[in-house]
């Protein structure tokens, strides 16, 4: 139980450093530290699928972020800060935080999942009949590819669309077509 507190405090300290520092390269490296701590917490929370996915996705995300920011000149932004806007947003965020604390008292305590209290939740069926109905030993695979395969189809569509969008934005040949009126 105390290992969760240590790792969460590590993630929070890395997040504070990532937000407050002026150098862009330091904040990108701190985001990598947050992802690494997150992967360790997933391993202690008994979710090995998620731990593998989180660490490889975080490595690729770091490569994309570093390639975009490493050799630009403008890594230091100076100028006046809007004091009034910052104070108002900090006050509003603090109010939302207090409201969230009230909501968390209605959740079950940490350590009992919801399907232990509710006898006809969906997870009861997934665990007790998943192997017989799909034949897979990994219950998470049988949930995402057999019981809830529509979610996977939607995810494939979203990933496809965002990659097409990124490739279209980064195109450089369109200008040359406009500059040659040969018709």
């Amino acid at each position, binding site marked *: 139980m105390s290992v969760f507190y240590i790792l969460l405090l590590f993630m929070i300290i890395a997040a504070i450093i990532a937000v407050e520092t002026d150098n862009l390269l330091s904040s990108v490296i701190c985001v990598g530290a947050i992802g690494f701590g997150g992967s360790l917490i997933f391993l202690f929370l008994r979710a090995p699928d998620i731990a*593998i*996915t989180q660490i490889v996705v975080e490595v690729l995300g770091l*490569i994309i972020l570093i*390639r975009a920011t490493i050799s630009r000149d403008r890594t230091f932004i100076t100028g006046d800060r809007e004091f009034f806007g910052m104070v108002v947003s900090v006050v509003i965020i603090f109010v939302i935080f207090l409201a969230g604390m009230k909501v968390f008292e209605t959740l079950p305590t940490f350590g009992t999942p919801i399907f232990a209290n509710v006898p006809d939740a969906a997870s009861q069926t997934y665990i007790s009949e998943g192997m017989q109905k799909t034949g897979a030993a990994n219950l998470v695979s049988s949930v995402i590819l057999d019981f809830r395969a529509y979610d996977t*189809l939607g995810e494939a569509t979203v990933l496809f669309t965002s990659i097409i969008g990124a490739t279209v934005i*980064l195109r450089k040949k369109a200008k040359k077509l406009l500059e040659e009126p040969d018709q």
Partner: protein
Amino acid sequence: MKGMTIIVKTISSWVKVLIFLFGIYIILFGHLTPGGGFAGGVILASSYVLLMLAFGREFAEENLSLPVASKLDCVGALLFAAVALCGLLYGAADFFWNFIHQKYLMGTDYEFNLVSAGTIPLSNIAIGLKVGASLFLVVLALSIFRPEISGNKEE
């Protein structure tokens, strides 16, 4: 984009084969051990990104160029849709019906093997191909675009 020193080139030419093999293992055994299509696809993409970082962009572009990567992406998505449609054609009234397991093999004692669980390994392979090709495509597009804007800042 130029590559790195000769030590990095030698080591990475051995290591990238192991990373590729590890990615294929995570995809294929996704229904027995942790992993699955998404994690395996990202590992496949990262082996090609290692090739691009160590050897330079032109070498990686000869190996797997931009049109080929985007066609592989489309093939993966269409394969996933084909597996879904086969469930519709085989008698039941809905997509994604695990027709291999429910019609032919249910009740027999074949769990925990590599060939089991019906359409789940086929879907894993399709998803892994799609995710890997997409992520390599976006890193390649980011690296082609960079030399245009800042001239000669290539460190």
